[in-house]
């Protein structure tokens, strides 16, 4: 029972952290004004961390809650459908790749970041009934890959350094 409460508190904390990272990302947005839709995917640090520490289910929960909260706080319903599509595809690919155990956290994070963009673009193509978004795809693949490496490195550092204090996570 006590463990369950601890678990809920821990996941709540992770959700809050992911939310803050999403906010930081929003603040950094004006730095890249000419590249539409560019995002670092900072909240993915927390998702990667959870995926490796706690497994798929808590990671899915925090990822979903984060998207709901971000769209309530900073976005709109339209943006929510995009981010949900991106988040779902990204999560699925990361879970499968982690199972396959071929790459480290960094590779998994890169795949997650790129798939997040692909999911969003596919959703946009569906909603706008247009296929002219290939441009976004190639640019976002480059930025998503670079950001994914940084996010993955942060995530793997977090995983390594929390090994000792396993009492809390």
């Amino acid at each position, binding site marked *: 029972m006590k463990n369950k409460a601890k678990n809920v508190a821990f996941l709540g904390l992770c959700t809050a952290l992911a939310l803050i990272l999403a906010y930081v990302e929003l603040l950094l947005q004006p730095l890249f004004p000419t590249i539409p839709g560019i995002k670092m995917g900072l909240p993915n640090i927390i998702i990667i961390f959870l995926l490796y520490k706690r497994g798929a289910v808590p990671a899915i929960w925090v990822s979903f809650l984060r998207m709901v909260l971000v769209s309530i706080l900073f976005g709109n319903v339209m943006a929510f459908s995009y981010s949900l599509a991106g988040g779902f595809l990204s999560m699925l690919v990361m879970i499968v790749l982690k199972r396959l155990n071929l790459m480290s956290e960094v590779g998994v994070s890169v795949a997650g970041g790129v798939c997040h963009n692909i999911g969003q673009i596919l959703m946009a193509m569906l909603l706008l009934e247009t296929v002219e978004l*290939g441009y976004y795809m190639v640019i976002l*693949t480059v930025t998503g890959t670079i950001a994914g*490496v940084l996010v993955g490195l942060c995530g793997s550092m977090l995983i390594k350094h929390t090994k000792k204090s396993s009492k809390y996570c």
Partner: protein
Amino acid sequence: MGDNKKNNRNKIRNDIIFVAVLLFAAVVGILYLFVFRESGNTVKVTRGGELYGIYSLSEDITEDIHTVNGGLNRLVIKDGKAFVDSASCPDGICVAHPPVFRNGESIVCLPNKVVVTVISENDGDSPDIIA
């Protein structure tokens, strides 16, 4: 322990290969889409997935596109390039987008469901392959 280390090294090698393949694919895509594309001569605007209007890139115009959700995107064509000058959307991504002029380039406003795409219309004097 030694096995684990070797396993980790393999994983990092796979990471690097994966990243390299992705970047290579993206570079090929960029070269294909941006460098080897020719300039277009026409701008096609769709609103909510339906055709809204066709404009020539050779004529300087300012067109207010009233969107399906009651918003506005101001399309400007100047010096053979098209861009969105101002818009009611919250993200402003379409306004920040650099001017488009290459065949197939597009500016997308997701919130307003407006897509501006550069196309190449046949001028009439070019031979029609199908007919």
